Structures are given as structure tokens and as C-alpha cells.
């Protein structure tokens, strides 16, 4: 790891100002993603602004961005009102990672693309041209089946699909104030060349908290994922789903898929087509994967995703 200057901030407002002044600084919360990127020398910031000293741990009404995944997993309020979010947090990584990794860090994590993580490769995200993963002999197994224009990496946040499914919003703090946006709007499928992540956050902007509102939709939510190992593994594919059914008809539906696109993949057209009809998991599952464009090495993910969508919807109250 290359050395850096370390800045610690007592609150998030001073952190946003520090980030604005120190151009190109990396922001560190739990550090489970950042430390890897620094060690692999994929990121080599001159300055690191740490949120370590910021005291902010609410897990009711809103989730502090600095709450750990374990805080979320342990919250009875989250478990009762947002089952998808509970499962997504409780099944993430391992106890060691959950004790340190934060809500904000999970949402802002960088791609796990093996080519992006290896500094011997260049791509759109590192300021280069092309995508090593598109080479016909590349290792495609864990890449996207819904592609971006320049990137076919898979977004592996557990929390993002779950939070999107329950209609959560992010309160984002920047030096001039705060704005609130749907979790899905934190992500940009086609970021500018040289931008190492798919976030829409501006320079100096931080997620302060995630707003959660208990609704019939959120209470009837579920998160399922497929891993190659029973634990300690990123999902090959994941699905967060939520439906609000009244009188046997779907009034509201959300299906958000993880690890299948460079950003969390929300199947909006499928959600819309479900409204006003009886819940039909098999039909919805087939519709979600109808547009998939797998690579040579990951066609199996289409089948897995289809089964996961069906399993998720079958697990909800209809």
C-alpha cells in the first residue's frame, strides 16, 4: 500500500468540506472495500478522509450511513418492517466484515470485476479504452448479464437491491446542503471515462442516512441470493422483491436484481405489467430475464436469476 495523509473529521459536515478541498481524496468509513483497493494499488489517493470518529449510529426511522451491517442485522425494527433489508444485511459476508462494514460503504462499494481490481488492466473505469471482460477468452463467470455501454461488471452490494425494493431513500450531504434521492438514483449505468465507480454522488458528497418508511409493500419483502459457497462469498446473483397485494390483485411491486448488471437492476417493465393482476411468480421470472444479454461464460446466470426471481415472489404473501 502506498502511503497517504490521513484526515479525521468529528462530523459529516466537516468531512464534506474536507473532501471538497482535498481533490481526489478517498473517503473511508469501515474501510473493508477501500483497504483492498489501496493494497491492490488500484486506488492511490494522496489523502484519505476518515469518518471513523463520526458518532452516528441510528437504526430506527432512518439507518445511519455509518451503522454497521451487524447493527442492521440486529435491529428488530428492520427485521419486522423490512425483511428484505434484514436478510441482505444478515447474510452479507462474515461476522468480521459485518462488524466493520457500514451501510454507506456497502452502497458505495466498487466493482468486484477481476479486471478492474487488477492494476495490470485498463478499462473505461480507470481512464482507458475498452473492456478486458469483453474479450472472448476473458473470465466472464461473475460478470453482468445486463450490460452497460462501457462496463459489464456486476454490482455486488447486498443492501442496494433490498433497500430499493422497500422504497428507501438516501439523504446525501454536500458542502452546500442536503438532498434526498431514491436509492436507485445513487447509481449511473454509464459513468464518465476514468470514474472508478458507478455513483452519482458529487465530489464532496456523502450519504448521511437511509430513510426507511414502513409500508405494506416493505413489510412484504424478501431477499434471496445464490452463492457458490454457503457463506463468505459474493452472490452470483441476488433478488430483492416486494409486493403489496389487495383483494388478490397486485397493487405495487418491486423486483430488483443484484450482481447481474454494473448497477442494481430494477425490472420496472415487469413490475408495471404485474399491477392489477394476481401474483404470477413464474411469468414474472421469465419476463425479468427476457432481455438478458449474457456473455459467453455466464449464460448460467440467466437460469439462476430466473429461478431466484420465482423463488423470491413465491416467498411473498399473495
Amino acid at each position: 500500500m502506498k502511503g497517504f495523509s490521513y484526515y479525521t473529521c468529528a462530523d459529516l459536515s466537516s468531512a464534506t468540506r474536507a473532501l471538497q478541498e482535498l481533490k481526489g481524496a478517498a473517503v473511508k468509513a469501515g474501510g473493508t472495500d477501500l483497504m483492498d483497493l489501496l493494497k491492490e494499488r488500484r486506488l492511490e489517493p494522496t489523502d484519505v478522509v476518515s469518518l471513523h470518529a463520526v458518532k452516528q449510529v441510528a437504526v430506527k426511522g432512518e439507518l445511519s450511513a455509518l451503522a454497521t451491517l451487524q447493527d442492521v442485522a440486529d435491529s428488530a425494527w428492520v427485521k419486522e418492517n423490512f425483511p428484505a433489508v434484514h436478510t441482505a444485511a444478515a447474510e452479507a459476508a462474515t461476522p468480521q466484515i459485518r462488524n466493520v462494514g457500514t451501510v454507506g460503504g456497502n452502497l458505495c462499494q466498487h466493482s468486484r470485476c477481476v479486471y478492474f481490481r487488477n492494476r495490470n488492466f485498463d478499462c473505461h473505469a480507470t481512464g482507458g479504452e475498452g473492456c478486458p471482460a469483453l474479450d472472448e477468452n476473458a473470465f466472464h463467470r461473475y460478470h453482468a448479464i445486463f450490460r452497460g455501454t462501457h462496463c459489464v461488471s456486476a454490482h455486488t452490494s447486498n443492501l442496494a437491491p433490498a433497500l430499493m425494493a422497500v422504497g428507501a431513500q438516501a439523504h446525501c450531504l454536500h458542502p452546500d446542503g442536503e438532498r434526498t434521492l431514491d436509492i436507485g438514483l445513487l447509481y449511473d449505468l454509464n459513468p464518465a471515462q476514468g470514474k472508478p465507480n458507478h455513483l452519482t454522488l458529487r465530489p464532496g458528497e456523502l450519504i448521511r442516512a437511509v430513510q426507511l418508511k414502513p409500508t405494506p409493500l416493505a413489510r412484504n419483502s424478501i431477499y434471496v441470493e445464490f452463492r457458490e459457497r454457503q457463506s463468505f462469498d459474493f452472490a452470483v446473483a441476488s433478488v430483492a422483491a416486494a409486493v403489496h397485494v389487495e383483494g388478490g390483485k397486485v397493487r405495487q411491486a418491486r423486483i430488483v436484481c443484484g450482481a447481474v448488471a454494473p448497477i442494481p437492476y430494477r425490472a420496472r417493465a415487469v413490475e408495471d405489467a404485474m399491477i392489477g393482476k394476481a401474483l404470477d411468480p413464474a411469468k414474472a421470472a421469465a419476463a425479468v430475464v427476457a432481455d438478458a444479454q449474457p456473455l459467453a461464460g455466464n449464460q448460467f446466470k440467466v437460469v439462476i436469476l430466473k429461478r431466484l426471481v420465482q423463488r423470491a415472489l413465491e416467498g411473498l404473501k399473495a
Partner: protein
Amino acid sequence: MTKRKIQMMLSVNGEDHDVSFLPHRTLLEVLREDMQLTGTKHGCELGECGTCTVLVDGEPALSCLVLGLECAGKDIQTVEGLGTAGGPHPLQKRFAELNAAQCGYCTPGILMAAQSILTKDPTPDRETLREELAGNLCRCTGYLRIYEAIEMAAEDMQHGS
């Protein structure tokens, strides 16, 4: 740009230590290289194996992913604080008896994770052990004996032996 060493007190195994290191040093590097506490092992260095597990304020954490300077004011427990050659901790005693340490590389991390489990739940069932030890890989794949040793140590600790 200057990158000076920082000087701070680090509480390890109940003792305050005056240490000095560069800001980008991980807790693992500070423990092993600056404090010569080499019981904590250096494995994948990327948070993928768990061998560097230590307890930070009682909770298992990966010392390879934690910055040393962010541990000021925290209580760090490493395997060196668990027992001594003459007076091993019940976990260490049972690991030795059952040959639960094969190559031994994962053992310090597993001992610390196990200690944390037993502090919270003195009689964990097998499923709890499996879940709570999910972050500690043993590539000799001696998991069964590891679980058995922890269960026997838990019993020893219940009966005060």
C-alpha cells in the same frame, strides 16, 4: 507532502503500549512488526481468510483491514492474551488435545473468534458455531475437530475446569 509517523497509545491484551507508526499501517502490521506480537497471522491481507482476526472491544475484526491509528482508545485482544504455555486457555487446551490445529495457520484467528462466541453464548450449538466462524477459513479443512474442541472448551468453562 510529509507523511510523518504518528505516536499513540494502543491497549493490547489489557496493557497500554506506546507505539509509533505511519498512518497507513494496518493493525496487523502494527501488532506484528512494530510490537512483535506475531501470534496474529498474516494471510490473504484482503479480508478473505480470517486468520488475522483479533477482538476489538470484544468483537471479532480483521486486523488486516483496520488502520492501527483507528484503534486508539479501543481494547485489542490478541491470541497472546488468551493463555500461556504453562496456563493455556481451555480453548487452547482442547485444540491441542483434539489436534484441532493442523497446520496451525488459521488457529490464532479461530481461537479469538471462538472466545468472542463463548463470551456472548457460553453454550453455542453447532449451527451457531458454523455461522459465527463463517469468516475463518481452515484450508486443512479440519472444521469438525475445531467445532468439537470449542464445544468441549465451552463445557470446561461451564464447569470451571
